[in-house]
């Protein structure tokens, strides 16, 4: 269907999955043997090759005039009208995501070679990472909702595996495992919504393929007043006769808007799960239990943006459902605000970033909800750059802190103390314990041990880790939205959209969204300032910080590349040029906005004020003790530090009741009542009672005694007769002869 020149390039797209799968298979088979660092190098090569393929797709699209293409690999599920292929959708949107996933992914692979050095499960880590890349590419590359769902759950699995990568660490030895499970289960709640949305889409449109679904909604989009007709061939159980009786049209039945609203709200449930929005955001902070490269790759740059990708992909349906769009926007903005406030009061360096991620995802969701799909994608991309950068640099900081602590511990051991044994694990994991035992999700639970992620333990690292400091600084400023770094441009575009809806169009929810996002932006700038000041400035607050040192080049080089991208990333979609907008416009409807100087100015001012405020609190008089100046806020700080007690709330209203009900059903209802009382006592016991009654009273008492009497009668007679049984064969023979003579006599003589 396309020019031959580009066809060959797009036919390559299945390879984008092939490489990571091949990489992971190699590591499954031989990873343990080739070990550190070759397993990592193979995985990085696999991911890099996928990046090359993605780049070729980019070239291919530019060559053929941005025509989307579908590459069919095989049929997957074909049942009746249902026809789901393994097929790839190559268009500007998916290629954008592919480039992001493979590009950032490759950098993080390389970084991880350094970060995971010496871990006993080194190769397994890279198997998971490659599996993740493959799943994520299925997610963004599929041409139907079910493949999207496959990738969606696949990345969820990788997330589960990687959060629990150090499955024997964390609170009580299972903290990490528990965090992984929490992530998976919470995501499954989202998937539940997504699955129902798919069912509804299929039974409405008769397909799950993007093209056909969107074509249906575009075709029927105008019929807002009528009950919608199911696509021909669907709902065949309604017999033909019945369908004739009820011609679709004016009669009762859902209109296209109702259906679109239902579908989009269900999709939103899915998005809130994967993209960590209210109410399902609780898993993401706990997910920081995973190794830091995982936090960067999965829980900041790529997987968590899947929800945004899905909404942007489904824009045709969302556009038909204004009520859903409003819901999406408000949920996004609220999440941005809520997470922003929580981030302010956290001490764990990764936890701050985690809440920051939730907050920024809120920005993107809000943008998608306002129909500003390009802005959402723009922020998605820039955020991927600087948040991956921030996470990786925080990993570098943690790495440095650990090595500092490690050096100290060795000193202490040399002087006769052995204080770090309580980190312990079993023998062969000892090294991993020392170098990475830090990944505790919940720092305060193990206060007696040293926590290299606690920002209160840091300070003054600027001098010890200069490269890390500079890239961290760039990332922080980009996130805070300071002109002219990447974050400024993308965040500003979202705010401008909210302003347009709220102020220009006068919609109330636009104002609410704008307000919430602006406050969130303020908090963003504040907590980033707080973090940089706490970590890198002032004096070292612990011995470990004093002994921290810079990370190796294999880690810092990817950081520098990401830092560059964070600086220039904004150029992708500069106002007036709108390169990204034009590029994505080939796939989805985009309406570029003019640059809004009021919004831009306002947000710049807000960011600067927030940074200034953070300097006032943390910069002027640097912290010297473990006491955070903000703690003087008292209850408010405790509340924010406790994350609005959402986890506790969920525990009280969902988890505890579920466990209680489960236990009640399992033990009381199913076992005691149903199994023991009903079946064993009533049915079996009743039967036994009847049987006993019959056996002892009726059978033994009446029937048996009658036959007993008969039997004893027989026995008495038998006592007489038994004397005839002498046991001598010849006696018996005599008797036989006697009989024979009698019989013969009767036969021969009796006539």
């Amino acid at each position: 269907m396309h020019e031959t020149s580009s066809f060959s390039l797009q036919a390559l797209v299945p390879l984008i999955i092939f490489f990571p799968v091949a990489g992971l298979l190699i590591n499954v088979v031989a990873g343990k043997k080739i070990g550190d660092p070759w397993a990592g190098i193979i995985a990085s090569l696999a991911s890099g090759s996928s990046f090359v393929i993605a780049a070729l797709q980019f070239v291919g699209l530019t060559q053929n005039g941005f025509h989307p293409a579908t590459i069919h690999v095989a049929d997957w599920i074909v049942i009746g009208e249902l026809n789901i292929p393994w097929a790839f959708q190559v268009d500007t949107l998916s290629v954008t995501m592919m480039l992001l996933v493979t590009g950032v992914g490759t950098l993080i692979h390389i970084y991880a070679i350094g970060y995971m050095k010496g871990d006993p499960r080194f190769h397994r880590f890279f198997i998971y990472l490659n599996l993740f890349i493959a799943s994520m590419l299925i997610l963004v590359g599929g041409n139907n909702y079910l493949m999207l769902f496959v990738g969606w759950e696949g990345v969820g699995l990788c997330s589960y595996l990687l959060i629990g990568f150090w499955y024997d660490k964390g609170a009580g030895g299972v903290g990490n495992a528990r965090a992984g499970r929490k992530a998976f289960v919470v995501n499954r709640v989202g998937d539940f919504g997504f699955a129902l949305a798919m069912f509804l889409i299929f039974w409405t449109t008769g397909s799950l393929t993007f093209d056909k679904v969107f074509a249906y909604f575009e075709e029927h989009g105008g019929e807002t007043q009528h009950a919608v007709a199911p696509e021909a061939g669907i709902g065949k159980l309604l017999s033909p006769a019945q369908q004739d009786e009820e011609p679709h049209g004016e009669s009762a039945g859902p209109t296209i808007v109702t259906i679109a609203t239902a579908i989009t709200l269900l999709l939103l449930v899915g998005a809130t799960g994967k993209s960590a929005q209210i109410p399902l955001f609780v898993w993401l902070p706990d997910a920081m239990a995973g190794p830091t490269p995982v936090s960067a790759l999965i829980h900041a740059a790529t997987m968590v943006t899947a929800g945004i990708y899905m909404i942007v992909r489904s824009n045709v349906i969302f556009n038909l459902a204004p009520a859903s769009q409003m819901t999406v926007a408000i949920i996004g903005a609220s999440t941005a605000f809520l997470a922003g406030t929580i981030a302010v009061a956290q001490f764990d360096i990764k936890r701050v970033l985690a809440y920051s991620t939730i907050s920024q995802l809120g920005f993107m969701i809000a943008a998608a909800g306002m129909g500003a799909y390009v802005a959402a994608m723009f922020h998605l991309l820039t955020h991927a750059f600087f948040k991956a950068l921030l996470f990786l640099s925080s990993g570098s900081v943690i790495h440095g802190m650990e090595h500092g602590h490690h050096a100290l511990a060795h000193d202490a051991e040399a002087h006769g103390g052995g204080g770090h044994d309580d980190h312990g694990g079993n023998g062969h994991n000892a090294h991993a314990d020392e170098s990475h035992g830090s990944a505790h999700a919940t720092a305060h639970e193990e206060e007696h041990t040293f926590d290299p992620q606690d920002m209160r333990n840091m300070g003054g690292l600027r001098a010890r880790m200069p490269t890390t400091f500079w890239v961290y600084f760039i990332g922080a400023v980009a996130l805070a939205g300071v002109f002219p770094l990447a974050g400024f441009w993308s965040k500003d575009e979202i705010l401008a959209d909210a302003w347009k809806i709220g102020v220009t169009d006068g919609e109330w929810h636009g104002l609410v969204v704008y307000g919430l996002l602006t406050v969130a932006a303020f908090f963003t700038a504040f907590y980033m300032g707080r973090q940089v000041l706490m970590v890198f400035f002032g004096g070292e607050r612990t011995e470990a910080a004093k002994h921290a040192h810079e990370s190796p080049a294999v880690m810092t080089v990817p950081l520098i590349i990401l830092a560059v991208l964070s600086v220039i990333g904004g150029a992708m979609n500069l106002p007036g040029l709108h390169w990204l907008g034009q590029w994505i416009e080939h796939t989805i409807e985009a309406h570029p906005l003019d640059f809004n100087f009021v919004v831009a100015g306002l947000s710049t001012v807000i960011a600067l004020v927030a940074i200034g405020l953070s300097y006032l609190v943390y910069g002027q008089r640097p912290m010297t003790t473990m006491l955070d100046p903000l703690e003087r806020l008292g209850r408010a700080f405790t509340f924010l530090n406790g994350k609005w007690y959402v986890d506790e709330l969920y525990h009280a209203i969902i988890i505890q009741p579920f466990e209680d009900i489960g236990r009640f059903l399992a033990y009381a209802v199913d076992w005691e009542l149903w199994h023991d009382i009903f079946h064993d006592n009533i049915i079996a016991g009743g039967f036994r009672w009847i049987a006993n009654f019959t056996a002892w009273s009726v059978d033994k008492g009446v029937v048996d005694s009658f036959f007993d009497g008969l039997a004893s009668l027989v026995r008495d007679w038998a006592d007489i007769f038994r004397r005839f049984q002498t046991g001598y064969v010849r006696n018996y023979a005599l008797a036989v002869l006697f009989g024979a003579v009698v019989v013969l006599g009767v036969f021969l003589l009796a006539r």
Partner: protein
Amino acid sequence: MNVLFSTLTLVTFFPLVGVALLLFTPKEQKDTIRWIAVGASLTTFLISLVMLAQFNPADPNMQLVVRSPWIRIGSNWNIDFYFGIDGASLLLILLTTFLTPIAIFSSWTAIEERVKEYMIFFLLLEVGMVGVFVSLDLFLFYIFWEFSLVPMYLLVGIWGGQNRMYAAIKFFLYTMAGSILMLLAILWLGINVGTFAYTDILGKVPAAAQGLLFLAFAAAFAIKVPVWPLHSWLPDAHVEAPTAGSVILAGVLLKLGTYGFLRFNLGLFPEAAKQYAPTIAVLAVIGIVYGAIVSYPQKDVKKLVAYSSVSHLGFVMLGLFALNSQGIQGAILQMINHGLSTGALFLLVGMIYERRHTRELAQFGGLWTVMPLYGTLTLIVTLSSMGLPGLNGFVGEFAILLGAWGAGQPGAAYGSYAYAAVASLGVILAAVYMLWMFQKMFLGKVENPHNNGLADLNWREVVVLVPLIIMIFWIGLYPAPFFDLMSPSVTQLVAAIQSAAVALR
């Protein structure tokens, strides 16, 4: 066709050759006995592959038919020796012949007492199970149905755990109780229609009589499946059965029930099926959610898996009574999937039981560190069981739920979307209990000193598991061959049900 040497007769009765050989093997030669049993069941599997090759996937009717008059009493007792298969029974036969060698092979070291009798019963069990799937005469079906009970009863009762007699008798009595009603219904049908042959009865059952007949058949099948709330025998039987027994019990015997629903309740009584679909769906949905919730707090791994069967079989029932292609094909595939995944889970539980002689969750923890290969394979099976896309469980569950949602359309079988929606909650809960189990067994630190130094899987255990794992991936990634096999038969069935539904209106 020659009755004696047709493929179906051969695939059904070939294990008897193994039985005959075993009878002449001295019981001291345990290894010879094991090899004979494995060889006989593997040969049966090969014969079933021949059957697969002879099967024409495009033909929706019964194929490879063998039929000859068997018992004639008077003019209205016409009992035939009548074998034949369609896509659904073909797949279930393949599942049976595939799982039996695996189950036998897995008993290699687990069974040391009375090996000869054990193997003989196992092969007899295979005859019974395959016989149920190939029989097209209702009387013959009933004979095989009851026959399959006996070896299983003995397997549980002789080689089972602590409480084996209780479990065995309970299993036997429950299944038997349901079968009585079915026998009555079969006799009624055979005498009133004048034949016991399935294909001849098809479409001839008067609508007025269908209701009671449906319930009579359903009583037998619902206990076997088991449909909530008739599941009380299942945890007992599963917990007490020897590992291989559990594998076959979960893998095939429960499918006898769902197969019966598919073949007889849907096939013979379409009007009644349409009428009772919402009722069955309610029970199925309750079973899904209830089974999942009850699995979670279990302390015994085997019991947890047993209750998860209740949940999974709920999905199958929900799919069957959606009465559309997606639901029914998904249900058939899910029967296969459940056989593979839950079978594999029981095998895995058996392997750890052989090492630790306990199945209590609290006794484990951190096993992944000690037994990495075991942990990884268990993870794959666990994920398959909770329906992760790319593995087999997902394809079946997705098709079932999609079908159930379609059945929720106004005028369709269920008439409400609530069934599919609530059932989908089961997918969330599956993640809850399955991951809980995995965490308790494999994650965390090794805290129980007994778990230190456990040997990882040996080659025999790997050989047992690898075919299952391959199938798990195959069905997950490329289920098309399986759907192709069953599609024509199911399409014909659905068409028949729809025309019956029109007639009902």
